[in-house]
């Protein structure tokens, strides 16, 4: 149990640093900004209590916000994403896949499952994030374009990270 908790805390610290130090400096025409740190929420174990899910998403967003000087924006988006997570899992999982000791990864549940799981939640994160940042609907289509491009980029990184850490089942 302690092992799982510390592993997740380490993952959170690593992802926040990676986001701020590397990904936030990616610059492609002012449109693409991948947000890979939400991998933390995706990979939380199924058994995580719901209140812990929300609180850890809150602190994850808050830590990214404090460093990138965008107070509240990432926090709001992360909390919303965490709120959607149980519903999404119910929506795309059939009962038999849901065993104890299984984690929400490509390794345990397959590429197709992870892809749809990640895609829905990334959308649920990016839409509030970008609209809160702009804080108006004035530049609606420009914002939509930025959301779309960033979703593609974030998904790419998420899947890549799954490939890198892929270890076949024993």
């Amino acid at each position: 149990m302690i092992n799982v908790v510390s592993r997740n805390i380490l993952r959170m610290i690593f992802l926040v640093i990676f986001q701020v130090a590397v990904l936030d400096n990616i610059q492609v025409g002012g449109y693409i900004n991948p947000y890979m740190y939400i991998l933390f929420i995706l990979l939380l174990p199924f058994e995580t209590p719901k209140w812990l899910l929300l609180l850890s998403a809150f602190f994850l967003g808050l830590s990214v916000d404090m460093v990138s000087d965008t107070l509240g924006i990432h926090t709001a988006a992360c909390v919303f994403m965490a709120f959607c997570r149980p519903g999404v899992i119910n929506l795309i999982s059939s009962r038999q896949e849901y065993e104890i000791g299984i984690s929400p990864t490509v390794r345990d549940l397959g590429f197709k499952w992870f892809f749809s799981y990640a895609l829905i939640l990334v959308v649920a994160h990016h839409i509030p994030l970008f609209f809160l940042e702009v804080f108006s609907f004035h530049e609606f289509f420009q914002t939509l374009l930025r959301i779309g491009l960033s979703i593609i980029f974030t998904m790419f990184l998420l899947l890549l990270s799954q490939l890198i850490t892929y270890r076949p089942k024993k």
Partner: protein
Amino acid sequence: MKNFFDFLVRQYFFFLFLLLEVIAIIMVVQNNYYQRAAFINATNETTGSFLSTINSISQYFSLVDANHKLSEENARLLSESRKFRKANDTRVYISHDTVYSQEYEFVSAKVIKNSTNKRNNYLTLDKGSKQGIEKDMGVITSTGVVGIIKDVSLNFSSVTSILHKDSKISAKIKKNSQLGTVIWGGGDYQYGELIDIPTHVKLVIGDTVITSGYSTSFPEGIMIGKVSDFKIDKGDNFYTITIKFNTDFNSISYAYVIKNIMKKEIDQLNKDIPND
């Protein structure tokens, strides 16, 4: 009453979500419109030192470029220095201190965090209130305007970049002193917009846009950019002007914060003017 509590406990997931979301939204609004709460400024010190650690690593990758820019600037300053100028005539102008007094002071600072890929971009500088930096001071580089100080902690300060939806820099066209405002519409960080220039003014591509000196943040004549495109929309009394920023915002490593020594006096005066 018991039923009510039962209801709360059963639906706690939703209510906790609502609570956290409201906290987050309040933070967004506060951050946008008011000075931030004191506890955030305290944590700014922690994140500030964290950022400067990251920066001290990443700056190695841009050392060549930064050196190049600094030496270029040194050369320019040297050539402006009076020591290296030949006197043109023998008349002597005596400037008493009572006639000219210094209006601006410059504090040099290192940029430890910068972004250009968001709709609202901020920079973080490694100088703060200890070095005399205050809110609303202007920030420039040797190539032009960067932004305005937004928050100050003891050793760090954050800057609202010109690349921000709320940023409005009072500007003018150098050759005819026509007054306008420079804003940024998002997208490419190299291009901004100059608004409020009436259509009777003659424009040429390549016209220089500089600060107007009407705000207390910037002195007059600081470079902003050059006109790269302009058009008149049908039935509009003002040009739609695209300008190319003179500063490459993606490669800023050092900046100067402008202290206006007369600011208090000007603000005091302006306070008495009724706002329409």
